[in-house]
């Protein structure tokens, strides 16, 4: 009896410690682990300009790529049973595979085009990207819950800063067996230097003027463990742009207090002498076990 009491007391103490630790633990986006097929989806204009505010009647291009965690390879068309975008109150929007399609890139070759109905409700669109492989493995993508950077329908959207970067090679750099799968996008930061702030800060864009704040956002998974990349398993993460010092990426909380999630970010003010035109943001993650993942993200710097 005494043993049982001691065991119960120990169990209760352990539970208390665990519970109190859990209460303050970070919530990685999208979860601590991603066991399913990894999917990355961006919303762009047909010319490849990243954007998340669209007026009714305008065209949204969803562009994606996916990684099968089993084979640790980028999903090829022949492996796909279905791949579509699920938009509330809309029929499923099927993806097609064509890296030369409007808005597509070699790294994000799957696209689906949606013309926003004139009567579509204004507000955030909680879309999902859903995929099923012939092997029956499935995957799902949702956007990071930061309202200013989520797909939003508005009759008075902020002006689009364009033209977009030719999508080109934007996307995952590696081929063959991957160790890490990465999602990368960028937003216009709220603290430009020598340039006016965007109408809506932290909205998605890949077009910047000199002096604007390029904020790179990323999340990913370790395909060997299914763990989401976090401070726990990442030794170092950064992004590089030619002619600029590397910018370390930080694991931090974002979004509205109470529903914050953790992902990787950092910012760079586009220098006043930065060359105009297309530039590649090279994102690198290195894990504690020495595995690396890279992703090339393309921006366009305009006058």
């Amino acid at each position, binding site marked *: 009896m005494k043993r049982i009491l001691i065991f119960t007391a120990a169990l209760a*103490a*352990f539970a208390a*410690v665990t519970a*109190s*630790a859990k*209460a*303050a*633990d*970070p919530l990685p986006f999208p979860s601590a682990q991603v066991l399913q097929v990894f999917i990355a989806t961006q919303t762009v204009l047909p010319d490849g300009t990243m954007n998340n505010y669209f007026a009714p009647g305008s065209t949204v291009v969803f562009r994606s790529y996916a990684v099968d965690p089993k084979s640790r390879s980028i999903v090829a068309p022949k492996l796909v049973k279905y791949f579509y975008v699920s938009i509330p109150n809309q029929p499923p929007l099927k993806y097609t595979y064509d890296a030369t399609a409007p808005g597509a890139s070699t790294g994000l070759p799957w696209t689906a085009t949606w013309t926003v109905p004139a009567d579509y409700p204004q507000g955030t669109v909680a879309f999902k990207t859903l995929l099923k492989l012939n092997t029956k493995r499935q995957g799902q993508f949702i956007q990071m819950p930061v309202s200013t950077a989520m797909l939003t329908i508005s009759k008075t959207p902020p002006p689009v800063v364009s033209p977009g970067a030719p999508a080109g090679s934007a996307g995952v750099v590696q081929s063959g067996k991957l160790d890490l799968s990465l999602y990368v996008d960028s937003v216009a930061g709220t603290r430009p230097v020598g340039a006016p702030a965007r109408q809506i800060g932290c909205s998605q864009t890949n077009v910047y003027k000199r002096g604007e704040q390029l904020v790179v956002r990323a999340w990913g998974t370790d395909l060997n463990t299914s763990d989401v990349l*976090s*401070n*726990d398993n990442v030794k170092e993460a950064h992004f590089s742009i030619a002619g600029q010092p590397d910018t370390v990426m*930080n*694991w*931090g*909380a*974002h979004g509205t*207090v109470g529903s*914050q999630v*953790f992902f990787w970010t950092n910012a760079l003010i586009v220098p006043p002498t930065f060359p105009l035109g297309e530039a590649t943001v090279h994102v690198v993650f290195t894990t*504690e076990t020495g595995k690396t993942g890279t992703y090339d993200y393309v921006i366009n710097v305009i006058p």
Partner: protein
Amino acid sequence: MRRLVTSLVALAVAALTLAAVASSALPIKKVPFTASYSGQAATKVDGTTANISATGTGLGSLIGAGKITAAGTGDSSQQPCVPFGGTGSMTGAKGTVAFKLTTGSSGCGDDGGHVFSVKGYATVTKATGKLLKAKGTLKFTGIYNRDDGTFSVKFTGTLKK
């Protein structure tokens, strides 16, 4: 006399050789260590210096359930990640691990400076009990909520003894 000197020299050489062999023969034991704690932390900013103190309870492998205490300072002029340093100790029923944070430890805050993601490395300066004489560096990661003062932290690494 000459014999005596020769014997003494031989004895000294033998003793030194034995000591060298003995010390090199001692295997270095690798001890995996993990610990997690949660509790309350306070930050008091004076100019650009943030004075930090933290106490919490939790569990460390080999040292058992117990508490953590730590204190240090951070440079709050640097944003969004505040570099900080300091010392602390983890105490359990079966031992203690004292540590010093290495350069590069930092806390990265959200836009409002409410929630900080902390990470860094801690060099073990002294260990007692089941980890007696253990040395090495541990990685720590965690979160600090400045609004309510709560924190949670995990230590992982392999010590040598």
